[in-house]
């Protein structure tokens, strides 16, 4: 700790603090324009200048200068105020005074400081800039006339996003923040630059002229897309969510958001929202009253209950709050006496609910997100971890660039993560990852690299037996990775002081099930890399509350049917009533034809959703529900953080929350009825061991991370690789960066950037097939044929193609059947 004096106040701060940090800690405000706590010090704006007794004659930037013992700092001398005023005068010389039409007004650092320092005259005169405003992209307006050169956009894009869309170009007064060759902006559109811009140089186009900053209510909540659990501030006016607002003090991610979190909020107030219940009459869905619709549902469910509950089933989305999921479980397990409930097509949660459960005794990750930056070696399974959980991707970027984390990527394709400094890519044949990880375990055992404690864990002998035929030399060809690389990776992983494995899960990754999770957990257990800081395996659930759904046991736990069996049951007539809450199996579950046939066949289909989805169109009753912005409750993130969701607006139209609907149905079926999420949370805390001791009020803004404990054991896994079909391409599916599940299709932002599905293929393959970027191509598998736009790039290895799964038209599940790899032929 270091002692110093600022404006006659004695302050003690850690020795790596800057003068700015120290002053802030002491409640002394030093003005800043270019400083951001997330970024490396820049020192460009010169607003934070202070005087330091020991460095007389100069003015010292507070934001870049570390404190030293005995430092005497003055922050508001006449000289300093004069210098700050001059800086503002100079900035205003070039910055247009168009505050009345600038969206940043009210939230503009320059405006606020000008006011604070009372700069009402300017001694200088000059012409303003006349840069053309960049309107070439749908999301970010770049008006470089307003730019004050704080460099934050370039720095955040480089340091955290690792994209590097911006750079200063030219020199002197002509210097400006430019893009590659000064062309229009074309990037990932995460909008990080917009969030940190201190003025109105970078603005959100969808928000343009929507509301003045001060006229909006700011509501803190949690993002409803992926499982990362980013906290979010919504800007609300007139019962509409108009934008997301940057708050650098929110969450582990310091307010940093990805493209969907920042721009994907429009689904909340989308005019496609369902506003009234619908009931099928004469084979047409027509508007109905809540009483009518609910009575119909209650009657049907009552009949099912009376019939013993064996012919009713439920599929629910893990996008609901934990309280709603709890009620859904309650409705089925207590109300209907049915164990036929599932979510995420079954396989997308299996890594947690079966894999982790069997290996370590609980259904959550033995690691948290913060471990990413504390580890020594980070092994990422699939480069897609960046696409499925982009803000976790930012953490990886930061870990590699700031903490020199040794990044290894085992993937069937290359990706953005592989371009990080010193990252090593192991590109394997699609579907062979399980074999590859078994080979790693084999090397660790053969070379005696296992941790001493591993011998005490049960199942080691079985594990060893299961690794027969898995030496690197034996699997090298099947995996497409050299034996030397496999051996080296195994050694590095085992010898690293700390090592963490990331495994993204989701509907697009049918191969990432229980076995893969267990193979990875075996590695961590073998080498003692579990239960310690910076170690473990992070099983990254796809949706905002995937972890909550696993925690609450929203899957068959007493011999009931899982998702696949439920759909089979619908097709065979064994299931007569299907209740779908928020899921859209027609688009997101494998085998579209099969799913559609099943849903067409089932006698009675109840769907509650925000939108009339492809699944809802087949329903007998459709119930309109509230979005996350209209309700209270909790989501549990990948990192086991239980966080509060807060209501920002009143329900849209006649929509009711899933909570209200499920609670009412519970009551109708004789199960306990709840009126308040807090009461449900209290019951969750009382019944789910991990949540013990948590209260809704106690979560506060920060949320709470629950602890895990269980008895580990080695679980041997089989490791068959998909047999290649000669002459065909291996189609692997997954997530596109701008989308998450099928919900983001209703967000304006993501759809502007990525409006439709595509087929990504390598340059050599494209050339051989005579396909150019943007061509429509026919993709045919054993189960179907669709047409997709070709995206030609350098990511895909020869013979492998990729397609995202989110889209309803020409949906990729027409081709896939739930195998990790689908073999397809491609034609024009």
């Amino acid at each position, binding site marked *: 700790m270091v002692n110093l004096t600022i404006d006659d106040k004695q302050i003690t701060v850690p020795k790596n603090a800057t003068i700015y940090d120290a002053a802030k800690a002491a409640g002394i405000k030093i003005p800043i324009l270019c400083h951001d706590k997330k970024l490396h010090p820049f020192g460009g704006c010169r607003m934070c200048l202070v005087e330091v007794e020991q460095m007389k004659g100069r003015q010292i930037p507070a934001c870049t200068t570390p404190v030293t013992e005995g430092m005497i700092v003055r922050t508001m001398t006449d000289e300093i105020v004069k210098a700050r005023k*001059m800086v503002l005068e100079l900035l205003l010389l070039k910055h247009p005074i168009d505050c009345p039409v600038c969206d940043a007004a009210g939230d503009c650092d320059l405006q606020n400081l000008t006011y604070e320092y009372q700069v009402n005259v300017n001694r200088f005169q000059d012409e303003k800039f006349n840069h053309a405003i960049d309107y070439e992209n749908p999301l970010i307006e770049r008006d470089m006339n307003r730019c004050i050169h704080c460099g934050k956009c370039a720095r955040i894009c480089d340091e955290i996003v690792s994209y590097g869309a911006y750079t200063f170009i030219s020199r002197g007064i002509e210097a400006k923040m430019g893009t590659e060759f000064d062309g229009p902006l074309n990037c990932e559109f995460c909008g990080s630059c917009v969030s940190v811009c201190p003025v109105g140089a970078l603005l959100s186009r969808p928000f343009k002229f929507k509301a003045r900053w001060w006229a909006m209510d700011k509501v803190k909540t949690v993002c409803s897309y992926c499982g990362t659990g980013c906290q979010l501030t919504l800007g609300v006016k007139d019962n509409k969510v108009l934008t997301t607002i940057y708050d650098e003090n929110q969450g582990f991610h310091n307010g940093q958001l990805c493209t969907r979190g920042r721009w994907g909020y429009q689904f909340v107030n989308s005019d496609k929202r369902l506003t009234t219940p619908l009931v099928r009459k004469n084979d047409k869905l027509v508007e109905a009253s809540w009483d009518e619709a609910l009575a119909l549902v209650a009657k049907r469910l009552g009949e099912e209950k009376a019939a013993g509950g064996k012919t009713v089933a439920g599929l629910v989305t893990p996008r609901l709050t934990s309280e709603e999921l709890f009620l859904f479980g309650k409705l089925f397990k207590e109300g209907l006496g049915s164990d036929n409930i599932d979510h995420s097509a079954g396989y997308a949660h299996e890594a947690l609910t079966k894999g982790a459960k069997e290996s370590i005794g609980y259904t959550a990750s033995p690691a948290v997100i913060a471990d990413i930056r504390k580890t020594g070696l980070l092994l990422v399974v699939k480069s897609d971890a960046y696409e499925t959980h982009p803000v976790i991707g930012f953490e990886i970027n930061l870990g590699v660039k700031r903490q020199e984390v040794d990044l290894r990527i085992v993937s069937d394709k290359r990706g953005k993560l592989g371009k990080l400094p010193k990252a090593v890519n192991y590109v394997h044949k699609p579907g062979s990852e399980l074999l590859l990880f078994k080979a790693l375990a084999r090397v660790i055992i053969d070379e005696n690299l296992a941790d001493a404690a591993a011998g005490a864990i049960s199942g080691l002998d079985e594990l060893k037996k299961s690794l027969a035929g898995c030496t690197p030399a034996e699997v090298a060809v099947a995996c497409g990775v050299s034996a030397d690389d496999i051996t080296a990776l195994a050694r590095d992983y085992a010898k690293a002081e700390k090592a963490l494995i990331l495994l993204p899960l989701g509907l697009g990754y049918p191969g990432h099930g229980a076995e893969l999770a267990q193979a990875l957990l075996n590695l961590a257990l073998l080498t003692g890399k579990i239960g310690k800081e910076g170690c473990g395996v992070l099983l990254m659930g796809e949706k905002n509350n995937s972890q909550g759904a696993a925690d609450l046991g929203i899957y068959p736990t007493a011999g009931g049917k899982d998702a696949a069996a439920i759909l089979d049951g619908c097709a065979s007539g064994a299931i007569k009533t299907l209740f779908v809450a928020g899921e859209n199996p027609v688009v997101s579950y494998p085998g579209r034809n099969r799913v559609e046939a099943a849903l067409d066949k089932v006698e009675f289909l109840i769907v509650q959703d925000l939108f009339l989805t492809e699944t809802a169109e087949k329903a007998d009753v459709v119930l309109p529900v509230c979005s996350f912005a209209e309700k209270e409750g909790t989501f549990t993130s990948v990192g086991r953080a239980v966080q509060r969701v807060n209501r920002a607006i009143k329900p849209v139209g006649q929509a009711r929350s899933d909570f209200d609907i499920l609670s009412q149905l519970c009551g109708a079926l004789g199960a306990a009825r709840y009126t308040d999420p807090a009461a449900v949370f209290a019951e969750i805390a009382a019944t789910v061991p991990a949540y013990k001791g948590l209260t809704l009020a106690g979560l506060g803004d920060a949320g709470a991370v629950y602890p895990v404990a269980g008895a580990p054991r080695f679980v041997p896994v089989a490791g068959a690789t998909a047999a290649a079909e000669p002459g065909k391409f291996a189609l692997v599916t997954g997530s596109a960066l701008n989308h998450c599940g099928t919900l983001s299709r209703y967000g304006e932002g993501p759809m502007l950037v990525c409006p439709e599905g595509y087929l990504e293929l390598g340059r050599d393959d494209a050339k051989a097939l005579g396909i150019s970027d943007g061509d429509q191509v026919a993709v045919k598998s054993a189960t179907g044929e669709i047409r997709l736009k070709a995206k030609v790039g350098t990511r895909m290895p020869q013979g492998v193609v990729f397609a995202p799964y989110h889209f309803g038209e020409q949906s990729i599940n027409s081709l896939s059947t739930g195998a990790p790899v689908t073999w397809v032929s491609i034609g024009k």
Partner: protein
Amino acid sequence: MGENAGIKILICQGTGGISAGAKKVEEEFVKIIAEKGVQATVGKRCDVIKTGCRGLCANDVLVDIVDPELGRVTYDFVKPEEVAQLVEEHIVNRTPLEKRKAKPYYNTFVDQQMRVVMTGCGQIDPDSLEAYLEEDGFKAIEKCVKSMKPAEVIEEVKKSGLRGRGGGGFPTGMKWSFCAASPGDKKYLICNADEGDPGAFMDRSILEGDPFCIIEGMMVAAYAIGCYYGYVYVRAEYPLAIQRLQHAIDICYEKGYLGKNIQGWGIDFDMRIKMGAGAFVCGEETALMASIEGERGMPRPRPPFPAVKGLWGKPTNINNVETFANVRHIINKGWEWYASLGTDTTKGTKIFAVTGKVKHTGLVEVPAGMSVREVIYNVCGGIANNRKFKAVQAGGPSGGCIPAEVLDTPVDYDSLIKAGAMMGSGGLVVMDETTCMVDVARFFLTFTRMESCGKCVPCRIGLKAMLDILESITQGRGKPEDIETLLEMGATIKKASLCGLGQTAPNPILSTVKYFRHEYEAHINEKRCPSNCCKELLLWQVVEDKCVKCGACLKACPSDAIVWEKGQVAYLDKEKCTKCKSCYDACRFMAIE
């Protein structure tokens, strides 16, 4: 070569020499000596040797003929067609060609100097390792490795009093000791050869004339600090320097003076050249490092200082070319010898690039502490065209102007700063009575505002705002409060800017206001430029009693505004005059005003 090697013909082939046609002259010498069988005739070997710059580039092509009997004779302005005669008279007939010899001022120019750093420049073939070895080349590093511990080398440099020649004047030994003390086994050494001051070319001349001495200086520093890798950051506008240095590096690798286990001494050192793309700010060490890393050359805040966290985040030591060039002499001759040169606070010699309205422009190396007056009048022959001295701008665009009153200021770091200028890299721009000091300030501001990297507000916008004010003054739109505004802004910009560029850029304004405030006032209050320089303020006319009827003005006028006939006083037609000033510059008799 040895004593009886015979005749050496040294031809200056720095950038100056080559542009004056030195290559042709050399070819001609070689051709004629071969054709005429001169070697056989005189019974001696005749070696034609290209050398680096010897300072007086204005007189290129300079050729020294060194003969064991006739001694060294210098010829200047040598043209290829004169070579035959020179060979015939001087070499064959053994009678130096008196009328083609360099004038006595050349010898004055040379003799008044003290060449330490530039000993090799102009004497040895910069492409020849043998020539360098003959001049005790690589003896310094050998001495270090064999008889001194790294700490002793640093101590030696500390005691010598060597200060950084890049401008700041930070004690070199101290700098080395900081970097040596930084923890870490990977450290970098950088030689800053991004010489950007207008008119300064000492670093270029050293690199062109004696590249091996830089390599050796860096080796010594690397040994002392514990670096194994060095960069030389040279601006790409110095193709010849890059070519010669690269050649020297290649030879050193070939002959085992660079690489692993150098000469079997058990030390490793690798180095490479990094070309700069011409940004002035890249001479600033943090910007330079950013540039080497492939980033945009923009200064970074300090701390952390490069010695702690520099290139690629590792401890880094940066010195200027001239600093490294001093090192081998300090090691070879000992710190006592070096410390005996110069003044109390500035030891050794300093090279100056003297340009402007002085008779003999060029590169001069003098012991620190010589007065500015001596440099200008004794070495460089005083002011050209019989005009009166007004000021000398020292220290490049960030330096200041020294007026006649303080012309006896000794050239050392502290005295120059006291006089309101700075040593900088050693540029001296001499100005005479025709130079307007407001215009001088405007000129330097134009340069610095263009070269501002655009990062910090005071420099990026502040310099432009100051320049706008200066322009309005020189155009007759100045306001009385402008001077105060300039002073106030200048003071703030100096204190508030991020790097050395902004922190010194107001100096030309501040020093000219300090010494020549009356000129500013004349521009603002009387709308008059006392030096007849600012075009917008001038109405040109011929001063009839000064006109000697020579007609020089007529020839110079591009717009037919001068009426003149032989034997007549010239007349200037104000209607046609475009105020281009050509006649004024052409008149040697101050008859145009």
